[in-house]
């Protein structure tokens, strides 16, 4: 029983982390129809930059901000300098983003080496806390990850559903050409969305790097997780990303707890089932 409850909590918190990474990926994917395979690289680079800044400034919170802001800038630059020139050429965009991710991964390996980096989270987030009703001890930091993901989800939802910018983004996801025809400067929206997506990845880099650790290879792991989450959840939908992240988080964690050897398989089983039954994803709109 204790194991079961802990596993549920673990699933929720892991899902939170997946959601943070995948929501940005899903936004970009949905609006621009291009798979930004450098998303994982942005996650890891944001984490490393956040680590350097946190180390230099002595404040973990500044580290988080640095990770998010630096990657948002990076994302905007990527859109302005690279992807803008490849518009409508989905295959090329994909290939260019793979190329970029390989280059960035090697530069990161050269700069930060192969060691694992761990953040020193502030003392009030360190250690574990007794959860009143369940009578369990649980790491505070993981609860923080969950809270951060929920907060990010709510903010994103408000942005998309309650603001003018959000309306334009949603319109763009549904029909880009129509949106352009109404006189909206879609290039600006692209830059904003790309920066937002990349910033979320950078934020997740620091938050996730503090929960687990930063090391080479994490970029691909989170890219794969994001891909699966978005495929399961449906592209361009924040709710979809949340459902996808929950499903994958539960599959990963329960798999590891109850049948460690085959844990990995469940994630892909879910993906196959979704692709077979509902190819556009749980919350995706069929085109």
């Amino acid at each position, binding site marked *: 029983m204790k194991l079961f409850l802990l596993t549920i909590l*673990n699933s929720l918190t892991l899902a939170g982390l997946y959601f943070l990474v995948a929501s940005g990926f899903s936004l970009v994917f949905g609006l621009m129809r291009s798979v930004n395979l450098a998303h994982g690289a942005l996650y890891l680079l944001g984490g490393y930059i956040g680590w350097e800044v946190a180390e230099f400034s002595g404040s973990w919170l500044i580290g988080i901000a640095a990770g998010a802001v630096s990657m948002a800038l990076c994302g905007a630059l990527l859109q302005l300098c690279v992807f803008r020139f490849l518009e409508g050429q989905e295959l090329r965009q994909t290939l260019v983003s793979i190329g970029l991710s390989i280059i960035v991964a090697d530069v990161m390996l050269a700069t930060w*080496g192969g060691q694992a980096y761990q953040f020193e989270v502030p003392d009030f987030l360190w250690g574990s806390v007794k959860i009143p009703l369940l009578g369990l001890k649980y790491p505070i930091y993981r609860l923080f990850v969950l809270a951060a993901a929920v907060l990010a989800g709510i903010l994103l939802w408000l942005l998309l559903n309650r603001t003018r910018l959000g309306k334009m983004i949603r319109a763009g996801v549904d029909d880009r050409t129509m949106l352009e025809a109404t006189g909206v400067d879609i290039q600006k929206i692209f830059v904003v969305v790309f920066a937002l997506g990349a910033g979320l990845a950078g934020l997740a880099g620091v938050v996730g790097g503090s929960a687990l650790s930063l090391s080479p290879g*994490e970029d691909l792991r989170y890219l794969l997780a994001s891909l699966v989450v978005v495929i399961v959840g449906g592209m361009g939908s924040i709710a979809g990303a949340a459902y996808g992240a929950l499903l994958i988080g539960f599959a990963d964690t329960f798999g590891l707890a109850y049948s460690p050897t085959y844990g990995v398989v469940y994630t892909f089983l879910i993906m196959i089932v979704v692709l077979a039954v509902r190819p556009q994803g749980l919350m995706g709109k069929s085109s």
Partner: protein
Amino acid sequence: MKLKTLTALALAATLQTGAALADDTIKFGAIATLEGPFAVLGQEGIRGVELAIEEFGGEVAGKKIELMVGSSNAQPDTAVAAARKLVEQDGAQIVIGPLSGSEGLAIKDYSKTQPQASFLNGGSAAQDTTLRDPSENFFRWNPDGAQWVAGLGEYTFKEKGYRNIAIVAEDYSFPYTLVFGFMKPYCELGGKVAERFWVPLGTKDYSSVIASIPDDIDAILVTLGGSDAINFLSQYQQAGGEKPMVAGSITVDQSVLSSKGRSKDYLIGTPTSSPVADTNTAKEWTDFVSAYQAKFPEGLPTPSLFAQEYYVSTKAALLALQEVDGDLSDQQKAFRAALSDLTFLTPAGERHLDENRQVVTDIFLSEIRPGEDGGLVSELISVIPQVNQTLGDDRETFLAYGPVGRDNPECK
């Protein structure tokens, strides 16, 4: 203009290597895990190779050594791909590597198809790479996982007094070997193993495993390497875990102890055994440490287990080459004979090979203590001399235990 110059330069470079190749170069290929969870260990391995080659001034018997590096990610197929490129495309005559257990098993099988090249293991430590069905041209100058932990089972039971433990280890050939080596003496003395958790290599989130660790145990044996170890240790501490640890060599290697992040003080007092002990005062080890620190100021505080193991294998190859005057003709026959008969003083004491081309070596039992400069070090407690692959049993008896695996030994 610039492009032309570059092309010309590249051309000149190609011509030069072409000329030099004639007969006065020996091609070395090194395979290490420069990607994936063991990236930092792989980096250390390559440092070891470079140290050995530098010690010989970059040449042996008047022939220049050309070093080519291939990278894998701890999965057997990537190691074989790297080896194929080095041997079949680049013409490597001597291969040093790979690093990880199951990679070693795959490279042993691959070596059988390439009789013109010799393979010297790097750091991989699965048992059956040399114990069962060995390969004529695969030499392992490094102990296997069971040899690594010689003495640890007895120490844990007798000195530490742990009677009931849980095991957390990665799910592949090397940890099976190491856990076997630990459990054999520990269980024979009457120790119990409450549960074994085999987790996939590269697992980041250990929360479920940590939640499942039973409460009524005395200690946990942790056998995880590289970033896996770092993730587990910090998550265990964060979850409020308080059981003492017993560490399988790589878990408290310098590559883990010196990683960036929150202090790992709770590891103080953790026993382990390994082919290296940081505070070893033997001259061959301290000399190696100084050479390493001089060449790699950006490296770890002291060389890790894998820097040493790759260094030993490379040096063995170079010493054997020296003995046969660089003669690699006739399917490297003379070289292989010299390599098989070689005995030399390594940073870990004297080593030689048995009839399966598997090393016999000293092993160091140690405990984790605070070092002088604020970091943690493994402090030498005792040396277990000349441990062989069958752990002192005769070969027949040892083979009868059966291949290592998740449930061997049973420990009833």
